[in-house]
């Protein structure tokens, strides 16, 4: 009982401070004097002393909303281990309860908003519901990465996957997913702007417009507690809780949570709000990242985690980015980064730290880097400039759909990787999944995009996938042949670049849909 009361008191006392930190970060980044660090406390105190006004059309739901919302947040706070690995309440499956307590709070807020009968609040409620429905899958999958490796599906077993100083690639991916969910759930930029006063663009704030006095104070407190809790979970994903807390570990924990606040502040200061229509894509990307994280986590590995695995995980994430980006330049640049990651692969697999260090991996890495990371992206960027196209405006399939398809293809590739096992144990366990996933996403680009440049990027992905596969077997292949293959790809992209230039000159654009006069 003491532990529970202590936890409640801590949450209520400390959570608004995190919001103060975000506010200060934004003020400093913008060069303003800004509100003081303790401003949230002042706001809440002021509101608590006021009375509330209720319109005659509002019923009991409107009044219950803020109170239940705060209660839900506080109970959820009892489930999360903070300073040490023990939470005031813990049982198998508490993770699911955590997610759904947050959901219940939101449900009541939405009901309260609808209860006002105002169309604006209804609009906010609709958006909130739509976005949080998409967020939910990302949150649960990220929590699964946190908790599934433990003996019980609970926060108590959290962090078992991390082991050692360098985090598991899956953990990093899940952390990225969780951060996106954190931004969305707490209505931060780029999903929602907590400071906006334009009803048309508001999501969360528009729902609570009618609340005042203590009710609004409860809402502020609830959102502060929620933000604090999600930051704490994020920190606990990266740094597992110690068995027994000391002053040092507690201080580190609080400092890291505040660092998350600073990070949120930096994101808010440097990014603009996304167009509403683009938000689902961001949220789906959290789901996709968490899905990959889960697949990576449970893929059978021969030994420990090595550099090659991290590189291949990066390749997988870049695939999804390329599949979902509408900007051609960004696609090409991501393709270049993927090329750079691939060029490090020969070194990671056969070079540094291996017994048979020779010139072969070095030459391979240098050649790949020069071609895949520099020459080919430059060629394509030039083609984009010449053809004067920036965006894939109307892809044949929506970008969100191709993002999700990319994630599904990745999952399929992981299951293929279990069937097709490479005989050589020295290669990374992610080789087969990464190779197939990259090839499949390449096909997705080839089939689903209209711009010629995007199709070339698809071809490059296809080739990158084959390259991953080749690296696992590279030791027996003569260097000349490998470099010849690379050169072939370079010349191929060169010729395609010339073709793109001609297409743009001939048709004034590079939609390959126009190329359909020859048929039977």
């Amino acid at each position, binding site marked *: 009982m003491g532990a529970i009361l202590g936890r409640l008191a801590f949450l209520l006392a400390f959570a608004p401070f995190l919001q103060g930190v975000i506010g200060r970060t934004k003020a400093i980044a913008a060069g303003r004097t800004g509100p003081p660090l303790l401003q949230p406390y002042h706001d809440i105190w002021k509101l608590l002393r006021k009375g509330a006004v209720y319109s005659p059309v509002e019923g009991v739901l409107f009044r219950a909303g803020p109170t239940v919302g705060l209660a839900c947040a506080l109970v959820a706070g009892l489930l999360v281990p903070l300073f040490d690995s023990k939470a005031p309440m813990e049982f198998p499956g508490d993770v699911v309860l955590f997610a759904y307590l947050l959901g219940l709070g939101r449900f009541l807020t939405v009901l309260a908003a609808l209860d006002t009968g105002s169309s604006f609040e209804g609009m906010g409620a609709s958006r909130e519901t739509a976005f949080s429905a998409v967020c939910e899958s990302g949150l649960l999958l990220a929590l699964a990465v946190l908790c599934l490796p433990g003996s019980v599906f609970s926060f108590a077993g959290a962090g078992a996957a991390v082991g050692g100083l360098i985090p598991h690639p899956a953990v990093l991916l899940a952390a990225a997913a969780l951060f996106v969910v954190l931004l969305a759930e707490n209505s931060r930029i780029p999903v929602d702007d907590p400071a906006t006063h334009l009803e048309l663009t508001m999501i969360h704030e528009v729902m609570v417009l009618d609340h005042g006095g203590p009710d609004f104070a409860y809402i502020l407190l609830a959102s502060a507690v929620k933000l604090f809790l999600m930051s704490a979970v994020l920190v606990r994903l990266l740094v597992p809780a110690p068995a027994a807390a000391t002053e040092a570990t507690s201080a580190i924990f609080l400092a890291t949570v505040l660092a998350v606040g600073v990070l949120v502040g930096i994101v808010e200061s440097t990014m603009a709000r996304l167009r509403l229509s683009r938000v689902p894509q961001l949220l789906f990307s959290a789901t996709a990242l968490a899905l990959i994280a889960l697949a990576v986590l449970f893929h059978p590995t021969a030994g420990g985690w090595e550099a090659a695995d991290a590189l291949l995980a990066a390749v997988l994430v870049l695939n999804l980015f390329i599949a979902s980006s509408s900007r051609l330049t960004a696609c090409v640049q991501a393709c270049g980064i993927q090329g750079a990651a691939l060029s490090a692969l020969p070194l990671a697999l056969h070079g540094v730290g291996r017994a048979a260090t020779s010139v072969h991996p070095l030459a391979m890495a240098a050649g790949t880097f020069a071609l895949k990371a520099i020459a080919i992206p430059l060629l394509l960027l030039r083609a984009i400039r010449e053809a004067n196209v920036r965006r894939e405006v109307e892809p044949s399939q929506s970008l969100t759909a191709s993002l999700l398809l990319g994630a599904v293809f990745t999952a399929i590739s992981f299951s293929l990787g279990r069937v*097709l096992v*490479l*005989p*050589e144990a020295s290669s990374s366990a992610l080789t087969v999944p990464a190779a197939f996933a990259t*090839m499949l996403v390449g*096909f997705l680009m*080839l089939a689903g995009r209209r711009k*010629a440049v995007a*199709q070339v990027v698809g*071809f490059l992905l*296809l*080739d990158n*996938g*084959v390259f991953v*596969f*080749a690296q696992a*077997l*590279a*030791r*027996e*292949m*003569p260097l*000349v*042949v*490998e470099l*010849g*293959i690379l050169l*072939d790809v370079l*010349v*191929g992209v060169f*010729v*395609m670049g010339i*073709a793109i230039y*001609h*297409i743009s000159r*001939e*048709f004034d654009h590079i939609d*390959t849909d126009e*190329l*359909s*006069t*020859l048929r*039977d």
Partner: protein
Amino acid sequence: MVLLALVLIPALTGLAAVVLGDAPRQLRLLLGAAVTHLTLTAALWSFYPMERFGGMLMLDAAGLLFLSITSLQFLFAAIYSVSYVQREGQHAGSTLRWFIPCLLWFLAAMTLVTVSGHLALLWAATEASTLASAPLVYFYRRRGALEAAWKYLILCSVGIALALLGTLLISVAAPGRPGGLGLNELLAAAPLMSRPWLVAAFVLALVGYGTKMGLAPLHYWLPDTHSQAPSPVCALLSGALLNCAFLGILRFHQVCLAAGHGDTSRLLMLLFGFLSMAVAAIFLFGQQDYKRLLAYSSIENMGILAVGTGLGGAAVHGAMLHAVNHSLVKGCLFFLAGNVLAVTGTTDAAAVRGLLRQVPRTGLLFCVLTLAIGGCPPFGPFMSELMVARGALFGVHPWLGALFVFLLALAFAGLAGTVIPMLQGRPDSASRPAEPTLTLVSPLCLAGLALLLGLYVPTFLSNLLASVSWAMGGGV
């Protein structure tokens, strides 16, 4: 050394042609390189050269057969190109500068395909042949040509990426030390290969190289490309390049045979072969673009090659002979189509009438060779198709033979249905355009060779065909 020279001579001559720049000197280089190439190739018939660079370059019977076809076809294409460049030179402009160098690099890439003894090198050479020929397809700077070149590039590059994956999978299949891709190594290691990896590799290679070869269902680039590319390029694509892609499939087939899974690869080839024949036969009907018509006929003939190899036994011998015959006749037909196009200015068969009256020599040859490619005696294709049909009829499943003959008849009807009206009737204009003798030299020579092969197959050729057939799991 000879093998290296065979690859390097056209490659370097191509570079020299770029440097020289003006058409007459480029043409002289082209002819010189073509004659040298054919002479060296002919010399290889008397001795097998040593393997070079640890088995990277080697020549076996199959390589020699396809190398000879390529070299011969290239010489005639070069001769035809002389008249072609003179004719098209004035309105081709700056694009002419790259025409001959690309032709030469195309030859170098195809030669490398035939003499490589390493599957990865084979792959790289095949991709190089796509890249060297794509600018040739875009010779006429117009929208249709651009579309054809783009489809050709993308579809063949994607197909060939699958072939690369197949190439890698086959090295996984090899036990012990994966990664080795030398053909002889693979053949030696084949009996111990793991079946799932090997079959997956063969399927990917069949789809990948099959795209390049024009096997259905990934044949879409072929009619588009052939309808837009210049005629000598079409002759090379159909007569030489498709065969080279087939060689890629044959290499994988060889490994499957050595591993004892020949039945699987045969079955797959039969499937793709019959599918290609059927698709081509359907599209040949009512085809109103006579260059596309010839392209679909190429798809049909590639189907025949795959079916013949898939049947095994004596049919393999027939298929290899058919590769030779098809190259001779199809190259010839594309040269003639180029002549018709030059006279009429259109590829629309409905707009072409009375060729026999307007250009009698071209018209007569066109008529005779259409009959030849359709399988009429006494030309070569008749003999080779008969051998394949016999193999099918007297094989395990005689109904396959019936299907084969039925599809041949269907294709012939479609082909003749479009070509015969072009020859008959009265031409639109009464004038008799000139028929330069130079444009008829290559078609005449090729037609003569095709006729010869129909009447008598020389011993040296039948010996070679027998040893290729033997290597590909067939008989004589």
